[in-house]
């Protein structure tokens, strides 16, 4: 019989591993249910005043999501299209929102808001 010390179950490394696994699953769910689904049929997003993201933008967002997943970053609360064919990843914690915005020109920015105030904005990837 395998002996497991109950203290091991709550050791920092075990907690980290569980947290990482939970994050990975959340990322994967967003990748599978949203980004891959949008890539399969971008027209489902298109509407009046709402341009569907191009395959290039969706693939760029997929690369970003997979990179964040593999680095163990916390998963976003939402991934939504902007009206112009871009895609926005947003994570919220209390009054702080962190955003990765993939713009329609392929540029990627990191933005951090405190409540409604933009407190940090920096480019991560240049666009066309």
């Amino acid at each position, binding site marked *: 019989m395998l002996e497991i010390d109950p203290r091991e179950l709550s050791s920092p490394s075990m907690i980290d591993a569980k947290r990482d696994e939970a994050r990975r699953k959340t990322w994967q769910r967003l990748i599978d249910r949203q980004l891959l689904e949008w890539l399969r049929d971008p027209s489902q997003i298109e509407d009046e005043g709402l341009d569907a993201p191009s395959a290039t933008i969706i693939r760029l967002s997929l690369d970003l999501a997979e990179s964040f997943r593999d680095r163990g970053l916390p998963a976003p609360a939402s991934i939504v299209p902007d009206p112009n064919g871009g895609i*926005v990843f947003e994570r919220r914690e209390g009054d702080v929102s962190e955003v990765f915005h993939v713009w329609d020109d392929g540029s990627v920015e990191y933005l951090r808001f405190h409540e*409604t105030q933009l407190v940090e904005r920096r480019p991560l990837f240049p666009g066309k």
Partner: protein
Amino acid sequence: MQHDVPDPIDDDEILYRRVPAAAAPQRYDPDTGELTDQAFAPHRTEDVTGISLVREKFKNAEQAARGRAGKSYYVAALRAGDIRCAGMSVEPRPHLSCGIDPAHAELPDLNSGNRKDDATLERQRVLVRLCLRVLGPFDAPAD
């Protein structure tokens, strides 16, 4: 009715912002009740003079939600006075390229030209906070 001089918007007027419900969860998630700031993000070519709103004085929520055939829409309700208190202007804009619609209004401070500005991104978030309620979804009848 004479529309040459637009009917001014009172502070107590309710204004609706149409929010597409396609590919949920999107701009509004009915499960969490969260509206994202992208509901107020300007389009790069269609919001040259400002993002559009619909005046409740002239159209109810279901009428305001009317969009592309076969699609579904929510509407986010805001009070004109709240928007003004937050430093944004609200203008009646009944003259459209397709005719006259007395219900049409715009927020000129959020437009195609400034869609990536810091101030615009902040204003989008202010509008989310000012939202009184989200109604719908309403289905647009198929052709």
